[in-house]
């Protein structure tokens, strides 16, 4: 869970310092859920297409994203965990720089799937 907490904290910083929001925790919750959903769906999609020649239906992907949203809502907001995270300022290897790099890479990897995922699956499925 540390990974999630670190990502949550860094997303929160983004929405309070860069893209300033009036309701940063809510927006952080949405953004974290979206990237988690893209990441999980991306892995499932690549695996299922590569190994089973099966393209996952979009409603399954949406369900996975909604499940991520629900999980984050229960895990963070139901127990008011964000306050503790902000107070603790979690990081990787006690380095803000390394933490930002890892969070950035995770985000890029997750979001980029939206762009290359369909190319990849189409190219594989055409050969099935």
């Amino acid at each position: 869970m540390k990974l999630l907490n670190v990502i949550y904290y860094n997303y929160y910083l983004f929405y309070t310092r860069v893209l300033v929001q009036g309701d940063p925790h809510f927006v952080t919750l949405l953004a974290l859920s979206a990237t988690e959903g893209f990441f999980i769906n991306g892995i499932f999609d690549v695996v299922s297409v590569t190994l089973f020649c099966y393209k996952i239906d979009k409603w399954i992907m949406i369900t996975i994203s909604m499940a991520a949203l629900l999980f984050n809502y229960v895990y963070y907001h139901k127990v008011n965990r964000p306050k503790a995270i902000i107070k603790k300022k979690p990081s990787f290897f006690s380095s803000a720089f390394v933490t930002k790099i890892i969070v950035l890479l995770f985000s890029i990897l997750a979001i980029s799937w939206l762009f290359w995922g369909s190319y990849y699956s189409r190219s594989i499925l055409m050969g099935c």
Partner: protein
Amino acid sequence: MKEDIPHIRGFSQSVPDSIDGGVFANNDIDMPTWFNRGYTGHACPEFGRREHLKEFDLINMNGRLYDPIPGRMLSADNHVQAPGASQSYNRYSYAFNNPLKYTDPDGEITILAALGIAAAVAGVSYLVGAASNGWEWNPSNWTSGHSVGFGVNTNTAGNTSVYGFGGAGGLSWTGGAAIGNGGFGGGLSSFGQASYNQMPSAGTGSINMQGVERAYQHEYGFWDNSFNKIPELSFEIPAPTLEGELSTAYLAYGGRGGGGPGDGDNDLGKAALGLGLSTTSLLYFDKKGNTWMGKDFSIRSQNWGGNGATGGKFKFAQKVSRGFTGLGYGLGLYNAYQVNEQHNAGEISDFQMTIEQASNVISTLGGIQGGAWGIGWALGRKVVNSNWYQRTIHDRYIPEPYNCIMCPK
């Protein structure tokens, strides 16, 4: 090859336990799918193309059924693909009885033969294009504004029947002429892509009605024979055509299908409408408009929607804000997966997918602003894809009476 021989009827009396005809069958049904691509790809029953009929030990090549044990088709080939080759007259054989050299994905025609036909079509198309341009052999110099459409449906593999050959179309479009075979043969296959994109170009063109008919049927599921009465078909499109008009039509119209040369789609039009509407959505939250969103997009108490003494204003404002953000977020999320699916299925172009996904990233990760963008984009999409918009653009760029054969319903 050695291990294939025993499975060919006539060489051995043994019948294998599984469908394992080596290169003739190119499948082993007992193997896991991911090891079982074979020579011609007749695998993947999970991918909606149930080509392995395990119950019958047959391969459904869609064009014909194939029995991999004797290495023979169950029905005769309709085509004599190479009259000079004796194996062409064995109408039940697979790929000239030479599966090491040829493949035949649908049992109709071999890839090599299809490539030959495609090459022939390309050659003829080029000749026609050159002839219609005063025997100018360099396509980049085909500026006369003439291009004789050929409208050839190559139908190479039998499973892409409505995708036509786009070569001459592309060339003629490059040269500024109107409609090449790619336009109606290929572009119209998806109804609206390259064909309409190319329409605004000045010049003359002709339509192969068979190509139009097939494309129309593909899109609308029927064809009225009265359409065939439209003169066969040489018509003029008003000249000159402004570059801007061409670009507008190219980008604004025809995004309903996929494929075809040019591949324009209506993304910029949609983006413009999405931007306008999302900007409107943002302005709706503007404090100057006596709404609850400040210039810095943070939540402000307003004198509507609650009681300032109890904090009701803020709570109500926050609730509304979250509602809008969540709505835009949900729309962006749904659209992201839908676009992924559509692009994977070839229903939208690469360009459209990129634009759409960029929009979805903004919608899902952009906070309240992104939510507003998502709402605006969804509304823009709704507007651009509506029939009245499509019809308006259609009527604007395609002159009567030719527009009536392909009007959006």
